[in-house]
């Protein structure tokens, strides 16, 4: 498999402070990659960088010709305004943005796709429900249905299974496996190591700097986990310029 995304000495961060520091490596096309690490390890920052929402402080990200807007991104749920008066059906239909854009109509074929996506996540009958009345699991299913419609080659998931019941997690993990079977590249930020070991063949363990990147069993080995814990978070106002910076 050829590379889908390559990192070359990548540093991402905020106000010159690195949140991801000197990351190099590549994600193959069709990879199913988990990103693990403690809070503040740079996991969500890395997804934002891949999605093009954050520019590198140093190094580069090569998407091999893929426009960042063709990457599907599922952010953490807190960033969605649940009080907005919009129904599940309309929320899911946003996944057609790439095809419909500002003015494109939603025809019969599109409506069928929307209905299939809603059915695929088990939300039939919820089409006219305002998103503010959904449970956390139902909202997450709605967002997965939107991802289905986006039909993207690369899918980024930021803590997609947090605070969900076992049945919902199982259903959504099945969707992730389906994407993997369709040779899509899936990169997910996760905290549940058991789930990662059971589902994701490849893992990047981050502690701002990359601790390990490879087969999940090795990356999440005891030595690497201990090393990640020691590195921890680091933000100092009096930090000096990085000597490795280009």
């Amino acid at each position, binding site marked *: 498999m050829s590379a889908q995304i390559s990192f070359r000495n990548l540093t991402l961060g905020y106000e010159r402070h690195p949140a991801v520091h000197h990351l190099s490596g590549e994600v193959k096309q069709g990879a199913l990659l988990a990103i693990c690490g403690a809070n503040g390890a740079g996991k969500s920052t890395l997804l934002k960088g891949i999605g093009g929402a954050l520019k590198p402080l140093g190094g580069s990200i090569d998407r091999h010709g893929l426009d960042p807007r063709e990457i599907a991104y599922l952010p953490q749920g807190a960033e969605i305004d649940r009080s*907005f008066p919009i129904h599940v059906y309309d929320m899911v239909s946003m996944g057609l943005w790439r095809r419909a854009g500002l003015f494109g109509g939603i025809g019969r074929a599109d409506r069928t796709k929307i209905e299939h996506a809603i059915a695929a996540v088990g939300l039939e009958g919820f089409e006219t429900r305002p998103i503010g009345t959904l449970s956390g699991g139902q909202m997450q299913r709605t967002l997965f249905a939107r991802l289905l419609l986006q039909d993207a080659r690369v899918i980024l998931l930021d803590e997609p299974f947090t605070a969900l019941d076992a049945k919902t997690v199982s259903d959504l993990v099945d969707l992730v496996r389906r994407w993997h079977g369709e040779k899509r590249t899936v990169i997910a930020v996760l905290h549940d190591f058991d789930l990662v070991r059971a589902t994701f063949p490849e893992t990047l363990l981050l502690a701002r700097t990359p601790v390990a990147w490879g087969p999940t069993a090795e990356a999440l080995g005891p030595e690497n986990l201990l090393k990640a814990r020691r590195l921890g978070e680091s933000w100092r106002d009096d930090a000096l310029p990085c000597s490795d910076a280009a």
Partner: protein
Amino acid sequence: MSLFDTFFAPFAEFEFMRRALAGVFALSLGAGPVGAFLMLRRMSLTGDAMAHAILPGAAIGFLFAGLNLYAMTAGGLAAGLLVAVGAGVVARATGMKEDASLAAFYLISLALGVLIVSLRGSNVDLLHVLFGTVLGIDDATLMLIAGITTVTLLTLAVVWRPLVLECVDPTFLASVSRSGGVSHIAFLSLVVLNLVGGFHALGTLLSVGLMMLPAATARFFVRDLTALVTTSTLIAFGSGVAGLLVSYHLGTPSGPSIILVAGLAYAGAVILGPIGGLAGRFVPRRHLEA
């Protein structure tokens, strides 16, 4: 007094009432959707700030050209757009919260306007700017308001989707499109345009009322975006018609009458509105099966 005398005769007999009715209709068509989006974007007080930002521009226009429609409109537009675009650009470029950025810009605008007026040493009569003259709308003003409404509806049709997406899920919009910033600036410009259109009829400070009160009232009755925009527009127009009739029969100033009627509708919705109204909390109803 018959039903006809109360509701229809004022409009049938007097041309200035028919002009006022047409003006209120055009204003409502623009103010309804703009107010709904201001509320949904949690920018309700932004409208108020923008109304203050327009005031010095309109006053400067008045200072140099008297009660000239075009001079006051140009002044109001220039001041409002400068504040709206400047605050939006600074917020997006620096990461400063938009409300703080807007407050800084409109306060500077207001102070500058007051300074210019006081330096001229003229005792300017700003009652027209402050409270408008809905019963004195002439052809040119009516055309201006109708033009602003047309621009508003056409622009909303273009930016509707990114506007909705930026409200509900800005991260998603940023991941699929670069239209978020442009649609935001376009929307702020619409707010300014509608405030400028409104100040000829209602004055700068009251014109924001025709945006916000109907939108806030509608939120107590509907859960759907399209219904919210439609209901806001209908309430704005209903308040306009009722306010004009109150003004005609009781001899009260027309602008404040319109806004007070909209305020009464809001008060009624707070108490009786089926979605979150106070009555629903204190009058127990049987829960549903599912």
